[in-house]
């Protein structure tokens, strides 16, 4: 039963990996450009969730120095990283949506298989 125990202990990591794979599947398998972009966002969310949980400590408190603060503390660094990551993800999403609008204006469709025919 050790494998099952290990999986249950790291259920958050397993969830992040599963979410990542779902996102990758959507990017690769779906034909609609908007759906592909949504898949990309799912992948990004999976990675952010993974990094945030890696900073968790069992029973950890927020690392803010007050008189009542008692260790153990959760690591604040991953949160700062993910904040930056989210900014990057938003800018990519914005750019991608703008490009999709431009593609639609040009070809009148955003389905990958129809776009291939117009090439």
């Amino acid at each position, binding site marked *: 039963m050790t494998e099952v125990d290990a999986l249950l202990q790291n259920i958050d990591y397993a969830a992040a990996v599963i979410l990542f794979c779902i996102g990758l599947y959507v990017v690769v398998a779906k034909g609609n450009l908007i759906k592909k972009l949504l898949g990309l966002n799912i992948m990004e969310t999976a990675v952010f969730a993974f990094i945030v949980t890696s900073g968790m400590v069992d029973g950890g408190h927020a690392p803010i120095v007050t008189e009542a603060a008692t260790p153990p503390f959760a690591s604040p660094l991953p949160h700062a990283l993910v904040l930056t990551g989210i900014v990057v993800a938003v800018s990519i999403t914005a750019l991608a949506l703008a*490009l999709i609008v431009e593609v639609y204006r040009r070809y009148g469709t955003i389905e990958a298989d129809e776009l291939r025919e117009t090439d």
Partner: protein
Amino acid sequence: MTPWLPLVVMAPLVGGALAPVIAIAGARLLRAWSLAVVAVTGLAALRLTLEVAATGPFSYPLGGFKRPIGIELRFDEFSAAILFMTLIGGLALTYAGRYAIRGLPAGGQPWFQALMLINLGGMAGFAVTGDLFNLFVFMEVVSVSSYALVALGDPRMAPLAAFRYLLAGAASSVLILFSIGILYALTGSLNMADVASRLDVEADGMPAILALAGLLTGFLLKAALFPLHTWLPDAHASAPSPVSAVLSALVVKLGILGLLRSWQIFAGAGWAPLGELLAWGGAVSIVAGAGFALFQQDLKRLLAYSTVSNIGYIVMGLGIASQQAVMGASLHVLNHALIKSTLFLAAGALIHQTGCRTLYELRGAGRAMPATSLALTVGVISVVGLPPTAGFPGKWYIALGALDAGRPVFAVVAAAGGLLAFAYYMRVLNALYFWPPTHERVLGVREAPVSMLVPVLLLALCCLAAGVFARLPMAFLEPAVSRLVGM
């Protein structure tokens, strides 16, 4: 502490952000401003390169916080590639001044210059950062600006090509961020040198291998190694020509630089078995890229596939992992940057003047535009790898390294790749010089304007110089390569 190191990153980023404001004062001032920013960056990079040649790699702790708490910038021999980035970036910007009049939508010029400068700043940051998360951030600065730059190109194909590029690029970035997250969870540090010393691949087992696999796949996708290259031909062919030059010469090389950084982190245990994989992947890429290029009619698509083939050489050299092969690969990273920017800028000048893109339509252009065609010819001879041009030393040392490591099959692939390159580039020379013109526009065409011609000819000259004086970069890279191979 030397202030040059932060300057080399900050100057283009800040300069790029200010470019749209400067543009209000006039287009001439904007162009002067961009070139001045690139010149300052180039001088700082030169200063740092001389220092690293004299004393070896050095670090700069940002804000005065020491490793592992603070974020550090680190300049080593590979970071000296910034010198090439500023050279090519500056020439591409000079070239773009005229090109932009016909090639860009109205009012696009300030944004174009801003994106080019930010792209350059991101590349410089990627080359000097010593922090894994900063590596990711700079990679995204480069990527996002590249997607936008591609979208400025040929309105018929560019938006779709840019979207495909974005999808592939963003997926690989996410994969790399995932790997960085795993490394952080394993070691509790983001400083590359610190991670390298704390990481014990054998004890950490599967997660460490997973991180390595993620980094490798991500960076190879950025470098467009076959079969991860599918996004590249569309993006590089439909971008404006100065952008194609920067993308093909520099941006794909960031993937290679990322590979080198991963190698530095996973030195020893985790890396050795991968050599075989990389060497074969590179070998397949050489042949496949050349094979696709043989059948291209569009000049810029042909050049794009040739990039896939040349990236194959570099990855194969790294995979063979003998001293000479890695030296050859490092040399080829720099020399291919010179060659491919020459080719793309010269091709761009031909396309700009004639309005034709395919080899068939461009027949006879060699007589109408002799100087541009001469530069293109120098580039072609270089990329095929004939001595004494820039393509020769890199490929030669990769082949020598393969023989040295007892793997003659890779030397054969290197030679075969050269022959295939000769075959498909011969089609270009044939079209330019030996076939009668098919398009009436080619007959009456004039030579490219001086602002386009000078960068192209300068780069062609650099191609020759890099072949003749190959000992200089070799002596400079020697300590870095020895460290890498010896690890």
